[in-house]
């Protein structure tokens, strides 16, 4: 029988080990991508297109494609999500209708991303005849982002004190005017944080764009919305599994992974900055 003190020490040690392992996972991911991706990273790599069957050259079209799809995702999902969150937090009472909306949102956030890909294929590519294109992929990612944008926006709206709404209504504003001029500006930093975090997730998603428009190689960066496009995550997938000279392009795959990671980290830091700055204003 071990003593109470030894037991407590062993317990603490096991928990420390667990936490250490989780940190080790993160550490090895970052260390491997940075040490092996950094040497292949150069200005040419992010400012030129691929050449000689992807074995040399850069990933500019993939960066442009990812930015374009993310912009479409934002244009579609942000107004849609914010409006729905406004309805839920400002207008809806606890009726079966609002409970049904909330249940739908919870379910949507659990739907696997590949099923969003199928839905995008059925609805946008085939149903609405948008074809495999930037537009289809952006809209598909928009649907995927919707539940997260609604949840974070509602959270931000909930933190606006009821007294502010009451003051606006007391001065004779209609409910819509009180939302537009008082509630939304107050909730804006919280909404932005949620939006940026959600977009960073959307930018890294691969499964939903597999069948809705991502292509392995296209020449040029036309920026046309009805064309297929290259995207950073898809490019990484293709380089690391489908290329004929896999060993030869491995440094390029590492560099692509690092660029993708940097994009995601920058978006996350932006979100943290907005949150931090807002906290100082309180």
């Amino acid at each position: 029988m071990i003593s109470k003190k030894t037991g407590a020490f062993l317990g603490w040690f096991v928990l420390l080990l667990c936490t250490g392992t989780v940190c080790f996972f993160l550490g090895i991911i970052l260390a491997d991508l940075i040490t092996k991706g950094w040497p292949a990273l150069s200005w040419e790599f992010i400012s030129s297109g691929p050449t000689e069957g992807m074995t040399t050259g850069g990933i500019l079209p993939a960066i442009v494609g990812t930015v374009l799809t993310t912009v479409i995702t934002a244009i579609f999902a942000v107004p849609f999500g914010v409006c729905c969150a406004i309805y839920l937090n400002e207008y809806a009472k606890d009726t079966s209708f609002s409970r049904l909306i909330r249940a739908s949102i919870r379910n949507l956030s659990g739907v696997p991303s590949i099923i969003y890909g199928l839905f995008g294929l059925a609805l946008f590519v085939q149903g609405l005849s948008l074809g495999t294109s930037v537009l289809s992929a952006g809209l598909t990612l928009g649907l995927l982002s919707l539940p997260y944008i609604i949840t974070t926006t509602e959270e931000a709206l909930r933190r606006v004190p009821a007294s502010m709404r009451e003051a606006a209504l007391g001065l004779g504003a209609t409910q819509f005017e009180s939302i537009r001029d008082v509630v939304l500006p107050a909730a804006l930093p919280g909404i932005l944080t949620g939006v940026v975090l959600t977009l960073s997730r959307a930018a890294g998603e691969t499964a939903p764009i597999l069948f809705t428009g991502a292509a392995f190689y296209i020449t040029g960066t036309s920026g046309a919305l009805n064309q297929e496009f290259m995207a950073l995550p898809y490019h990484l997938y293709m380089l690391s599994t489908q290329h004929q000279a896999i060993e030869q392009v491995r440094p390029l795959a590492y560099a692509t992974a690092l660029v993708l990671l940097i994009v995601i980290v920058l978006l996350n830091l932006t979100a943290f900055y907005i949150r931090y700055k807002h906290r100082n204003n309180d």
Partner: protein
Amino acid sequence: MNTRVRERYDAVFKLLFKTTGMLVIAVLGGIFLMLVWNTVAFFIKVSPVDFITGTQWNPSGSQASYGILPLVVSTTLVTIGAMLIAIPLGIGTAAFISEYAGKRLKNFLKPAVEMLAAIPSVAIGFLGIVVVGPGIAALTGQPNGLNALNGAVLLAVMALPTIVTIAEDAINAVPASYREASYGVGANRWQTLVFVTIPAAAPGIIAAIMLGVGRAIGETMTVLMATGNVSAFPKGFFHSVRTITATIAIEMGEVPYQTTHYFALFAIAAVLFLMTLAANLAGEYFVNRFRKYHAA
């Protein structure tokens, strides 16, 4: 602006906001309908019994067979492996963060977990190929380490942030009075954690696990890249497997529109949908139970 116009605006926007709410329901309904519609189209051509009990998935053979069992077993195998790794690590980390870590350490550990959650699945899948795979190959002497074990390790990494965050919330939500009562009768911190705090937080911790399971079942890119995708009946952790998600990802790009094979992919997507739905509903049930229990 006069009052009539302002009130008109008010009514119009109220309607607009409400419409977006209806559209959200329509999106889920649309996904559901799409799955049901195509699954029914599939069942007209292939009997549901053959689909559910078939042990071979070979849609492009001369004698096409659409048995979902190998895919379901693959998904289950990889998910179980992932949970064997992620559950102890996740709960241990959550307990450490909420009960032992000081403020400074917490300010490092919480962003670290968020950072782990932010890493795209395709990047983790890539590391499965270049780091975990060669590692498993070196340990077992196989030519490459692309097998169920590799997928399980990667899925554990993907599910960990979910489990840690929700389990930590659950442990934090246990009222301080419980711990104080335990300290009061002479228990130390470890005994309090094991015999008081964790049992009190159990429903929340189970919820964390179920949501982690839901995440692991639905994950596509990591398993697609790391498990080798051999479409045979899975033999174990050291063999290549092919999950439901990976099968959809590989085959959807190649099938002609509205063939039996096309419908079959929607049918396995419907099964995937039901599996994640079950895991998420179970998670939600335990979250609610945890809330009620502590509200009382």
